[in-house]
């Protein structure tokens, strides 16, 4: 049903694209399967200008996705320190700015963002888990005496968190799953509202704990796939993948890791630093050296920003390319993702996603007429993925829809 609807929409877009191409043949080189994005470009306005800024939306033109990634780097280097201080300063600035525009009626909404930012400062805590903790705090702080009011407050807080960063898939998925999980309980039958509320809090805390432990569960599940003498290619700085490799090393397994450089964030450099501390043999590759090195690779490990209904993943730019190469050379691609990253999205191509932009530095000055692709993420279709390691178990991409049905039913 969902696929048919999406396909219909896609077909209409394509039909419109035909008309569009006839009207503007001079811009043929610019054409894109997504009519919506072409419309934005045709109107000669920057894409980000179309976004309506909410009162708590990050006012920086740089996506909060990038700031979160920067702030969450576990390595304490001078660069990280500078970025962390800049991020903290930025957040404080946002807080000051937000405080001036909010009245007393919005105090709770402001509090949920503050709570979220406090949780986010922990380097090892995922963004979605921070949101889940913040929503649990909303329940704890609520003075509602009816379930209806509590539901309305939760929904407002959730919407506020989602609008803080519209490009974060795990944030949206985490909020949705939290509300669904927390309210699906027989405890709501209690006549006494306080009993029902405390039961909700128990569910909220439990969900938070499950989400925190997800990483460890995934690490345990994936040990069967790492054998002595294997070579693993890793892309991106995923804390779940890092946990997997750490656990394998602790189990005295001998393996080698190839890291992509991960420009422009330099995630590979950071990851290789972490791995060398664990005495794991590690080799750093240029991003363009993946195909060259794929011969000696036994498996590919990547994390995920989001897992979509089709079983595909949305992850750091370059994941799709690596998966294509691995698939053509018959190397398995394993995805490590927590279940709270399962999102109700069904993208059909790269342009179906809202762009998450980031700054890119080439080291030399770029002429103003040159256009730069600044998207931070790409979408990898499910046919290029072998298995998904999640806290729900080891899944093939085709069962993601079933798991989503289980989670949301």
């Amino acid at each position, binding site marked *: 049903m969902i696929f048919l609807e999406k396909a219909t929409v896609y077909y209409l877009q394509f039909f419109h694209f035909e008309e569009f191409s006839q009207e503007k043949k001079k811009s043929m080189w610019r054409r894109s399967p997504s009519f919506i994005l072409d419309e934005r470009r045709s109107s000669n306005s920057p894409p980000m200008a179309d976004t309506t800024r909410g009162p708590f939306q990050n006012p920086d033109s740089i996506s909060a996705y990038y700031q979160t990634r920067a702030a969450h780097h576990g390595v304490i280097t001078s660069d990280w320190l500078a970025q962390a201080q800049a991020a903290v300063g930025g957040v404080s600035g946002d807080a000051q700015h937000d405080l001036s525009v909010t009245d007393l009626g919005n105090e709770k909404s402001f509090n949920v963002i503050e709570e979220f930012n406090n949780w986010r400062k922990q380097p090892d805590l995922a963004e979605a888990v921070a949101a889940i903790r913040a929503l649990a705090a909303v329940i704890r702080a609520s003075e509602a005496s009816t379930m209806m*009011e509590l539901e309305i407050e939760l929904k407002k807080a959730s919407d506020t968190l989602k609008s803080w960063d519209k490009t974060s898939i795990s944030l949206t998925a985490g909020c949705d799953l939290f509300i669904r999980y927390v309210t699906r309980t027989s405890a*709501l039958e209690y006549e006494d509202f306080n009993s029902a509320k405390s039961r909700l809090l128990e569910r909220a805390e439990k969900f938070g704990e499950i989400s925190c432990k997800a990483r460890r569960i995934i690490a345990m599940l994936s040990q069967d796939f790492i054998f002595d003498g294997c070579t693993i290619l890793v892309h991106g700085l995923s804390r779940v993948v890092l946990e997997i490799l750490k656990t394998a090393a602790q189990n005295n397994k001998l393996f080698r890791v190839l890291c992509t450089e991960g420009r422009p964030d330099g995630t590979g450099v950071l990851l290789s630093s972490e791995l060398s501390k664990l005495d794991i043999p590690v080799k750093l590759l240029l991003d363009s050296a993946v195909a060259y090195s794929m011969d000696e690779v036994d498996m590919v490990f990547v994390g995920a920003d989001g897992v979509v209904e089709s079983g595909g993943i949305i992850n750091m730019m370059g994941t799709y390319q690596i998966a294509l190469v691995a698939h053509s050379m018959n190397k398995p691609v394993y995805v490590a993702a927590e279940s709270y990253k399962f999102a109700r999205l069904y993208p059909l191509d790269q342009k179906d996603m809202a762009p998450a932009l980031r700054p890119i530095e080439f080291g030399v000055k770029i002429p103003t007429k040159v256009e730069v692709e600044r998207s931070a993420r790409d979408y990898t279709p499910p046919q290029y993925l072998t298995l998904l390691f999640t806290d729900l178990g080891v899944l093939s991409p085709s069962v993601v829809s079933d798991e989503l049905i289980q989670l949301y039913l």
Partner: protein
Amino acid sequence: MASQTPNLECRMYEAKYPEVDMAVMIQVKNIADMGAYVSLLEYNNIEGMILFSELSRRRIRSVSSLIKVGRIEPVMVLRVDKEKGYIDLSKRRVSEEDIQTCEERYNKSKLVHSIMRHVAETLSIDLEDLYVNIGWPLYRRHGHAFEAFKILVTDPDSVLGPLTREIKEVGPDGQEVTKVVPAVTEEVKDALVKNIRRRMTPQPMKIRADIELKCFQFDGVVHIKEAMKNAEAAGNEDCPVKIKLVAPPLYVLTTQTLDKEQGIEILNKAIAACTETIETHKGKLVVKEGARAVSERDEKMLTEHMAKLRLDNEEMSGDEDSGDEEEDTGMGEVDLDAGAGIIE
């Protein structure tokens, strides 16, 4: 009382919010992530919510099979926050008798509300004023304004007369005086009585009994006719009794009455009179179905039944469909001798 644009929105009851553990009638407005938002029809469509976990006692396979936008049904009130106006409801906890009570009460309240709103609209007065001065006092005095309206059909003054309200005005000595005046003006009273009589005059209900009547003695048909006349004679002006032949020996006795109990009693008397007469002439009467109130559906079934039996009972002539006699005609004579040969 009159204003430029009179307010025609008002809740049906004096309390602004329902009490906990009370059944109310709702209409589903929209279905959200955690539950369904509904409007409470008896409380001026204020908003409440039914959580999905309160929809059914059994595991829900499909929410849409249990709740649909636009559907009207009774639910139980779980929690009320009267300061902020939040109401938790449950469809799961409402019992069968609560459903009956709630639907009956809502139907009465709906009729009362319709009459009150129409009076307010035609007289251009505030509906809430009408409820404050007339509606809610009637609910208090008579248990339900519907009962008051029923009495009002025949005796308006005994219902509306005791209603009073207080007016403060300045007396001749400059002191403020509290004065008690009738709550209902003549204009309002006339409009109210007229609308109530039109909407609430009770309709007579039909009561029916099925019997078998047989008499195989000499002049049996005459005796059956006599018994039928005696049965009809048992009726009175309020409850006229009629007896009809469905198909021998099945007869049906009917009467119409405003009072159900009286109608059943009269019909039973008619059956007794009929029994007495036919047994005097050594006949027999068997009651197939006792006296009871019948619905529209029963009436329609009886009509169809009688039509079918009438069709079966009609006579048909035996030779009506006989075929035509076929004539046996020949081909005519042909002279084979003339010109038969080929002459070369």
